[in-house]
């Protein structure tokens, strides 16, 4: 597998037809081969890349933020990219995960593992309940319903001040050391925390990979491509979608828990629709239906936000424009477009 990574200095010649003119193009075969190798073994590539990642971004907290949001987008992608359900309410599961982890750490048990697992489970449970109401409808109804229910949760979180802190957010989430087999490790240096988050990213990637490779994963994609046909093959497609939705909610909840730990604070905006919108934009920017896409999307989005917000308070106008252009001209997203380009060159 690793042998393929050595890039040979081969030149590929081909003719490109533009209009009625033929143009001869010389392209080194290296890039194309790299993209091919990466798209075939995304997990290996992601693992290697993420180990060096914190050393190549401007500051380490940004790297942590990117992989947390990347994880969220990855969970979202199970819904949109692999099952074809456009949800506009994933803030609900992310926010619930964040609040659950925070509240558990403050009130119940100061154990990070326990907090995160509770966040994950609550994300799944919320997705289970709301999924029951939303999954019956498809397409645009689904988008509108998920958005509406997420707003409902936002208003509840906003009003329930005793539990969530309302508008002020959930403050003072305790900083507790991580305990593994009786050892307690302090993870609150930026780099250590990054690798702690990375651990969960890797575990989630492996889990999702396992799910997608399984027969169930293939059914998911069958449902996305042709619901009727999957149904006539004997699959209860609404249950399949429901389960995918719950898995997606669980990963989002986990990402929310990590988000809470990262900031030691949960703001009410984590439940707000902008959070849902952000994850939709990241997933589309990066390219849906792949492992790498969501992380690229999260990286590009947060990096641009970081750079642009230093220049102007109205940075959203640029990201909005980028997003609109992306929908118009590159619906496959950054990673999808790269793959398309290399595939076209090969032909």
């Amino acid at each position: 597998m690793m042998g393929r990574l050595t890039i040979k200095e081969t030149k590929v010649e081909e003719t490109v037809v533009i209009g009625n003119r033929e143009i001869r193009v010389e392209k080194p075969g290296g890039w194309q081969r790299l993209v091919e190798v990466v798209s075939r073994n995304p997990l290996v590539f992601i693992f290697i890349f993420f180990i060096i990642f914190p050393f190549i971004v401007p500051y380490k907290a940004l790297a942590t933020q990117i992989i947390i949001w990347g994880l969220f987008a990855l969970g979202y992608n199970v819904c949109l990219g692999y099952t074809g359900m456009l949800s506009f309410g994933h803030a609900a599961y992310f926010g619930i995960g964040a609040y659950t982890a925070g509240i558990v750490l403050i009130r119940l048990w100061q154990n990070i593992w326990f907090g995160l697992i509770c966040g994950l489970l609550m994300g799944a449970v919320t997705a289970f309940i709301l999924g029951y109401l939303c999954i019956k409808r498809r397409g645009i109804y689904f988008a509108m319903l998920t958005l509406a229910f997420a707003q409902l949760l936002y208003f509840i979180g906003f009003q329930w001040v005793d539990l969530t802190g309302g508008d002020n957010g959930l403050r003072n989430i305790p900083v507790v050391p991580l305990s593994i087999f009786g050892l307690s490790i302090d993870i609150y240096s930026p780099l250590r925390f990054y690798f702690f988050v990375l651990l969960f990213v890797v575990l989630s990637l492996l889990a999702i990979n396992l799910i997608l490779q399984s027969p169930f994963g293939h059914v998911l994609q069958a449902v996305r491509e042709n619901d009727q046909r999957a149904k006539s093959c004997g699959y209860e497609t609404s249950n399949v979608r429901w389960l995918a939705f719950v898995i997606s909610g669980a990963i989002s909840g986990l990402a929310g828990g990590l988000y809470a730990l990262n900031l030691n604070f949960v703001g009410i905006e984590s439940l707000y629709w902008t959070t849902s919108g952000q994850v939709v934009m990241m997933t589309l920017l990066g390219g849906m239906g792949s492992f790498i896409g969501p992380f690229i999307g999260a990286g590009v989005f947060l990096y641009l936000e970081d750079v642009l917000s230093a220049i102007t308070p109205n940075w959203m106008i640029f990201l909005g424009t980028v997003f609109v252009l992306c929908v118009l001209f590159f619906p496959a997203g950054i990673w999808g477009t790269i793959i398309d380009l290399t595939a076209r060159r090969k032909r």
Partner: protein
Amino acid sequence: MQLFTGLSLGMLYVLLALGLSIIFGLLTVVNFAHGAMYMWGAFAGVATVAITGNFWLALFISPLVIGGYGLLVERTLIRPLYGRDINYPLLLTFGLQFIMIEIIRIFWGTSDHPFSAPASLSMPVEILGIFYFPSYRLFVIGITLMICIVLWIFLEKTNLGLVIRAGTRDPLMVRALGIDMRRIWWLVFGIGSALAGIAGILAAPIRSVFPEMGIAMLVECFVVVVVGGMGSLKGAILSGIIMGEAISVTTLFYPQMADIVIFLVMAVVLLIRPSGLFGKAGLLE
């Protein structure tokens, strides 16, 4: 008294939901920028009043500007997406609303803009000798009813309305009869946007005017449209009024629940009738 307040709020929902509904019914486009258009309608009113000081002129200009803007958006941004997956126009308008909000923030800042009803409509009126009611709200109710009637006559009695209704049923057949559906779609998107513009300027004196005012409204209108049944104008009107009433009655008795009640109504309606009050099952899924 509270019932009348609810009715005037419901009328705003009706206007917005009608716009969403006719656009959706014909183009199968869910316009996520509808809330931002409503907000632009209000700001167009603020700008007109700031320049001319005349509310009536603003009431006239807002829908024209927003309708024209809608025509432009359809022509340049949405038209290239016909024939692609139904989710793409939705995503596009979703991105567009961010741009629209930021543009307003750049010119007007993020704060609230006071906007008062014209002097001739600021006196309370006595109704049935029982209570006093702000006359502006009565005006909102009246003008919405008028718009509904005009829209109804337009759709039911004119040739163009006939084409639009036929286009909702079977666009392919209409095209086979030699009518350019794309121009109809274009026009309908403009009408829908203009309705959002009117709703914006009507809402300006009742609700506060700020760049994010359209967001909550958009979500509430989605709820209205889902409850009424996608693409059904009757449903949009009825459920708009129901939601307006639900909100204002809860505000009276249990204000904490006011933001939440419409979602509960929606959940109940969906459990009983998954396609909404007047919706057809299986439409565009």
